[in-house]
């Protein structure tokens, strides 16, 4: 399994480097094993440098930059081993408009591999969805689900509530 881990690690590393440069429009990123000698136990270090910047560590990245770096890493792993589905809970909260557009563009590329379930408050992200569910609490403390018929262009008509069986 040592070979298996090394090949997977190298592939993820390649993907991460190219996805990061694509998402940030430049800069560079990398992954490396803290202890090369002990492949099966070693921790993994992440390096990320937005274009033009000289960073000493990823903890100095801003909230939005950290989210986009994590997105690059997540999808780098997905390229090696796609999961049939992916749930993203308010991933877009710290992002500005232009990063939300980049996030959506990346998401669209992975639709062929996986189903995405995206929890969001952001109108741009909502406009991207094929199906939209609203969760309401008309009765305090009791959640109900309403499915909203949705054509990608966004003319939404509220459906009857999702079958409360």
């Amino acid at each position, binding site marked *: *399994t040592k070979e*298996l*881990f090394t090949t*997977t*690690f190298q592939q*993820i590393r390649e993907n991460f480097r190219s996805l990061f440069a694509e998402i940030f429009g430049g800069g560079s990123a990398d992954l490396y094993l803290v202890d090369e000698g002990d492949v099966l*136990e*070693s*921790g*993994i270090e*992440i390096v990320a440098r937005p274009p033009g910047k000289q960073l000493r560590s*990823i*903890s100095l990245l801003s909230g939005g930059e950290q*989210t986009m770096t*994590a*997105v690059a*890493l*997540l999808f780098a*792993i997905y390229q090696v*081993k*796609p*999961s*049939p*589905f*992916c*749930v*993203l*809970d*308010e*991933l877009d909260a710290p992002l500005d408009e232009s990063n939300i557009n980049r996030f959506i563009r990346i998401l669209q590329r992975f*639709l062929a591999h996986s*189903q*995405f*379930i*995206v*929890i*969001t*408050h952001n109108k741009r992200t909502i406009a*991207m*969805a*094929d*199906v*939209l*569910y*609203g*969760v*309401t*609490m008309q*009765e*305090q*403390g*009791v*959640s*109900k*689900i309403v*499915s909203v018929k949705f054509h990608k262009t966004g003319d939404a008509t509220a459906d009857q509530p*999702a*079958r*409360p*069986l």
Partner: protein
Amino acid sequence: MHLKNLTAYGFKSFPDKTALNFLPGITAIVGPNGCGKSNVADAIRWVLGEQSAKALRGGEMADVIFNGTDRRPPMGLAEVSLTIGGVDENCLRAAGVDLTFDEVTVTRRVCRDGSSEYFINKTPCRLKDIQQLFMGTGMGRASYSIMAQGNITQLLSSKPEDRRLVFEEAA
């Protein structure tokens, strides 16, 4: 493999049986603060075998059972089912499931005493069987397929040793 349907009953803020159908592509879940969106993500994480109450934002496993409101009493059990289509024959065989069709429904139920029961297509099974079913498909427990609210940067801020876990899952 793809998700087809999630049905929750007595789970967190879903006392009444509620169903959600999934289609290919992107499904968006929206609603005001506190209405129960993240509880849907928790239901998926839980039915796939999550063992940590903390990962479900509770103190003990019984915290996932509907705890009542001013007008409704607390319930005694929580049950979530997840129907998955397009399951690989090898996975079905490994979990000892009847091969007539490629759909499988995984169910988890918990009572107030905290003990969980698991079912595949309504037949009682062990947690190991469910984990066997999803072995190697990327739907495993520690996997990167459910990103909890505010946790995406966890991948970056965790210690180098902890990050390995996700890489090992992908290997």
